[in-house]
């Protein structure tokens, strides 16, 4: 039986995706209001107080990219242990979505850096460099998958890479504790902390980013399963043609 088919997609799956999409859209509207109007402007400690609001987009993007690569790591382990090809599909979808969030974190970080430090990038900052390494690991994972045609070999090599590449996540996250960094530490241990309204705005932003991540991930997994089914049908037709 095919893993996915337009007719086989259960109605409740479609409803779940629709609910997640609506919740994501609604929470994003609330997030925009809270970021632009509710959260207070932080005048002390920042050279560009208005640009500081990029924080509410930048931090959730970065955290979601960590979450995405953790999903790649877990799904890769499941695939290599249990030979579950659905796990491989989830790993691939999570890597693609994670790459997207990682890119957004780099873009928003660069914009905030330009506003705050008058520089889009600072090579001497270890946090920035390790996060760029994570982005390159994501890109290499996607490039590896794209370069191999044979499905089983592709899944196996990608699975191994997904496990080894996970080192980029703790490397990036803990870099600010191990090495000196210009990057601000806010909500992590040792950080300055947040005012109540700022914490609330950040919390709502996190919720909307999580919902967007879930919606895009589920959609991407379904599309990948559909693509695999199309390939299976093509092989079946080619096999029948030679009979």
């Amino acid at each position, binding site marked *: 039986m095919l893993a996915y088919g337009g007719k086989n997609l259960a109605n409740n799956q479609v409803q779940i995706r629709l609910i997640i999409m609506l919740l994501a859209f609604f929470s994003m509207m609330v997030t925009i209001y809270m970021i632009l109007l509710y959260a207070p402007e932080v005048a002390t400690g920042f050279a560009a107080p208005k640009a500081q609001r990029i924080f509410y*987009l930048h931090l959730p993007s970065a955290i979601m990219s960590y979450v995405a690569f953790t999903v790649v790591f877990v799904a890769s382990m499941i695939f290599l242990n249990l030979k579950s090809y659905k796990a491989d599909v989830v790993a691939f979808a999570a890597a693609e979505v994670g790459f997207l969030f990682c890119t957004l974190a780099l873009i928003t970080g660069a*914009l*905030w850096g330009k506003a705050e430090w008058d520089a889009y990038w600072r090579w001497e900052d270890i946090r920035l460099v390790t996060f760029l390494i994570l982005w390159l690991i994501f890109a290499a994972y996607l490039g590896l998958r794209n370069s191999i045609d044979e499905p089983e070999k592709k899944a196996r090599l990608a699975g191994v890479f997904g496990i080894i590449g996970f080192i980029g996540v703790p490397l990036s996250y803990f870099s600010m504790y191990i090495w000196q960094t210009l990057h601000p530490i806010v909500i992590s241990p040792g950080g300055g902390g947040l005012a109540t309204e700022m914490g609330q705005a950040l919390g709502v932003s996190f919720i909307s980013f999580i919902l967007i991540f879930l919606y895009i991930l589920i959609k991407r997994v379904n599309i990948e399963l559909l693509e695999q089914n*199309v390939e299976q049908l093509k092989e079946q037709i080619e096999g029948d043609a030679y009979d």
Partner: protein
Amino acid sequence: MTDSGIQYLYIAYTAIWLVWFLYLVYLHFKQARLENAMKNLEVMVSSHGKKRKK
């Protein structure tokens, strides 16, 4: 730095929405193409199955 940086905030918002929107458009067209291919292939499989029965 005397500029409050508001323009960077607007660019960041625009970039986030644009990237998500473009990605969702890409997924939408990819899904439509695959569903179309699936329908055509299913027709080919069923017509091939009928020919074999004959």
